[in-house]
């Protein structure tokens, strides 16, 4: 079953049209429609090795992410990773990964629309995050490639540090919580002269 190519389906991201008034020192945008696949596999096992070979790099260890590759990999838990790639690659990557895994016990699930991504950057980012995140994200403890699944305010997020400080971070948030998180971020910026 394939989509009719004559009809180009319209899709809408959870934060479509989001354009908050932010203070100087913080930028925020949604990175919509990323391909996101949830991988469940025993760490260090045959499936993890097969996936690493398919991707061309090893799966990251606890609280880290493998970034700046065609498929970025986020550690979500001891036997769980999120594979993130450009839009519209879910079918191809799922098929490729499942073929690589073969009959071994591992699972790949398309969860692309489960979460959206907020890309945040700027000198104010450490302050804004500190209003809602209990973790120590200082440069010594959280270099680029740090990845935590945690709470930001009352929303569960997977936070990826892309530049230490953090000066750049991606927040993966459940689609239904995206509006709340966006509103919380905008409100957090009032303190710093937003709007």
């Amino acid at each position, binding site marked *: 079953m394939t*989509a009719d190519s004559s009809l180009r389906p319209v899709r809408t991201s959870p934060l479509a049209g989001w354009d908050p008034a932010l203070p100087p020192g913080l930028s925020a945008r949604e990175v919509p429609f990323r391909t996101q696949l949830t991988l469940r596999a025993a760490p260090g096992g045959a499936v993890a090795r097969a996936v690493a070979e398919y991707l061309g790099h090893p799966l990251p260890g606890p609280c880290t992410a493998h970034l700046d590759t065609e498929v970025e990999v986020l550690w979500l838990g001891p036997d769980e990773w999120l594979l993130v790639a450009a839009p519209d690659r879910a079918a191809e990557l799922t098929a490729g990964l499942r073929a690589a895994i073969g009959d071994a016990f591992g699972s790949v699930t398309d969860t692309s629309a489960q979460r959206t991504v907020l890309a945040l950057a700027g000198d104010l980012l450490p302050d804004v995050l500190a209003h809602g995140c209990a973790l120590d994200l200082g440069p010594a403890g959280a270099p680029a490639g740090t990845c935590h699944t945690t709470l930001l305010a009352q929303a569960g997020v997977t936070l990826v540090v892309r530049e230490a400080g953090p000066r750049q971070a991606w927040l993966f948030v459940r689609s239904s*919580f995206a509006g709340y998180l966006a509103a919380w971020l905008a409100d957090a910026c009032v303190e710093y002269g937003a709007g």
Partner: protein
Amino acid sequence: MSTPFRVAGHGRVDRSATLAFTFDGTAYTGHPGDTLASALLANGVHRVATGITYGRPRGIVAAGVEEPNALVQIEAPFPEPMLTATTVELYDGLVARGLGGRGRLAATPDPARYDAKHLHAELLVVGAGPAGLAAALTAAGTGARVVLLDSAPECGGSLLGTREHIDGRPAQEWVDAATRRLTAAPNVTLLTRTTAFGHYDDHLVLALEKRTDHLGAAAPRHLARQRVWRIRARQVVHATGATERPVAFDDNDRPGIMLASAARTYLHRYGVLVGRRATVFTTNDSAYDAALDLADAGVEVAAVVDARPTVPERLSRACAERGIPVHAGHVVTGTSGVDRVSRVHIAERDGRGARRHGVDCDVLLVSGGWNPAVALFSQARGTLRHDAGLATFVPGGPLAAVRTAGAADGLRTLGACLADGIAAATAALTALDIAVAPVPVPAADTELPHPALELWRVPSPRDGVDGAAQFVDLQRDALVSDVFRATGAGLRSVEHVKRYTTVGTAHDQGRTSGILASGIVAEALGTDVADLGTTSFRPPVQPVAFAAFAGRDRGDLFDPVRVTALHAWHQEHGALFEDIGQWKRPWYYPLPGETMDDAVRRECRAARTGVAMMDGSTLGKISVQGPDAGCFLDRLYTNVMSTLKPGRIRYGVLCGVDGMVLDDGTVLRVSDGEFLLTTTTGNAAKVLEWMEEWLQTEWPELRVHLTSVTEHWATIPLVGPRSRDVLAAVTDGLDVTADAFPFMSRRDTVIAGVEARVCRISFSGELAYEVNVPSWYATSVWQALYDAGRPLGITPYGTETMHVLRAEKAYPIIGQDTDGTVTPQDLGMSWVVSRKKKDFVGRRSFGRAENLRADRKQLVALLPVDGHTLLPEGAQIIATETIPAPPVPMLGHVTSSYRSAALERTFALALLRSGSERVGETLYVPLDGRTVAVTVAEPVLYDKEGARRDG
């Protein structure tokens, strides 16, 4: 306007600026740097409040957070109750009044912002007095992250209120230099106006920063007025200082009776004389500093009354030089005065009140010794020990990551406090393997004071009940006689006495009264206070407004609002929303002029006679994958799932180990090794966690993976006899006939160019489909279905109609029709419980005698006999038309109740004792002082044969 008690040459207030304020209706002025208390004292106002129980006049006792008396209500710019006048920084336009123990909250919402912020450090130093500053300076040089807090607007602690020297210069110069250095250090976070109010597990310290309170009406609106800092430090040094404590004697509560150190602080920090003629009553050396400083500033010191038999030579000489009479071995036995102390009665301590004589004065300055401020250290599980030389309790020793320094450690000289601060920071950082370069100890006074006398109270010379005019806790109006009554009633523990007398339970947490109470209990019991100990110290050490705790979690951010991908469409089409957990779900879609009943009737009719659609995206969805997935589901669901063929769907019930219904939903077999199951909206996370728990803790041998896909898929139920036509219209080549696309099966198709999974599932009894697409496409697909259905009158419907439709079919809502005591059998669903499976979670319980009783509560339908009364959900069911005398036997209760368009009547579902046996009976539901007759019916009321399922 004159402020007669302001003295030249003293104080840190800015006299170049004047602030106008109003207290108890009278206009006064003060200066920047004043507190409300210092400004009042500068104007000669001592009486600021009224005792809560006895209504006696009360004055300002202290100069800081330990103030037990001077509670005020701020009225403007925004009402705030129960603040201590000694900690309210003065601002222009302040309007306040004194309180008799109870304040009032504003009737309007607080317009200020409040927030919270997390902070991480290697070292947290609480208190920026001499020890804290020395500790922070020591750590600052290492580059480690240091946080330094202080309640006051500026650093210095006790140095702000004394007249000491460091390195041969006035101590303030050292404080200023230290502050400059710490402010400039990039690794140091210096927070003033910030009070650490709790030390919690794993060294989480919470602190409240009052950021703009002191600006009054000029506070910028965008800044958080107060902030709760959540500080995690690897090492903590509590340099929290010490609090002077009073001595109890008769009429010790009159305005003008204050702590000796407070009078000294008002002089040095605020340039305020607390009176013209002072008497000083002390058990130790420290009050002499106050007496001498006040005398030098022009106050006539009428007498120093020292309870110790001999006065140290140095002090008696200094007093003699100033012409201050010193009465060694004497005590204050009582006071006179109306609104203010006017005379102090003194007598020889061992003279049983004989040869009593009076000393006229307008202030009485008292010092009963010093208590280290150990509340935070104690909260961190630090132990205390009694120090006989100091006549108080001091920290027993450092913990692995928590230490005390300075006066909080029981040290009494500036030199020792500075050295202790350096040592504490060095020890803390060394414990973290951070190298600390040796830091020279600044030169300061190290001459130890003479031993203090342990004196808790002076026995009353009057006839009558002893201690009946001696106040232990001024705020609670708790007397020495109350303590004696407690011990007389047999109480032996200071904890019990605290609760019996309320001593130490007020806003000040017993800072001045707690140890005093311990001492008096010890006296009453004839035991040693060392053995008795103190009451526990609990957070918060200082009152914190609920608004500060709430922070930004208010209004729209109070609780996350979760919305589906279709939310905007629902809003544009006039939906009203219902809160289901954190979700906003469309409740119903009223047309102009429609009531809720009208709208729901119309929506129900469309679903039963035409076609309707709803947003079911909030259903929990879990992908279950792995070779053992079928086996896993067989163990959890009451029925068999492993026999499902790919592409087929089965309804299932999950029970807890107690056999009670936990959740329900559908299970779709996607392929041999993959199932997709749905959960109820509210239980999605709980079911996933519960399944993971079984998998990880009980059955780790099963090769199964669980992945939440709740928000990946949008789910659109398309419902009604014409739903097939709509589906056929939007798909190309999908055989939608009942034979080709049977009930409880799944077909993949393309709708609006989107790959869709369509399942034939019905939660209404009608022909129905569930269209599942990745949620990005939800709006496109929904719109395509809506457009295709327009010629057939397709009607979007909400949760209310969904509830009516499912209730007509007796499909239970877990959590509404069940409450954790209901089995599948109670719901009339024995068919969903497998008799073939050897075991599954909950199975054992089904064989219990209790589960087999015929008189369990069972799900039935109730039909009000009049056909139109809508029973309230939760209403009780009784057997008789008239309500008998209590206790009234209750047979059950209504769980769901609606008006049915299809049945043209009202109806309800209920859990009814022996419900199955009662079908056909008439029972009664008390309502508004009458009873409503109801007929008990089989729960399924509509289409009992299930004829409508295939359209």
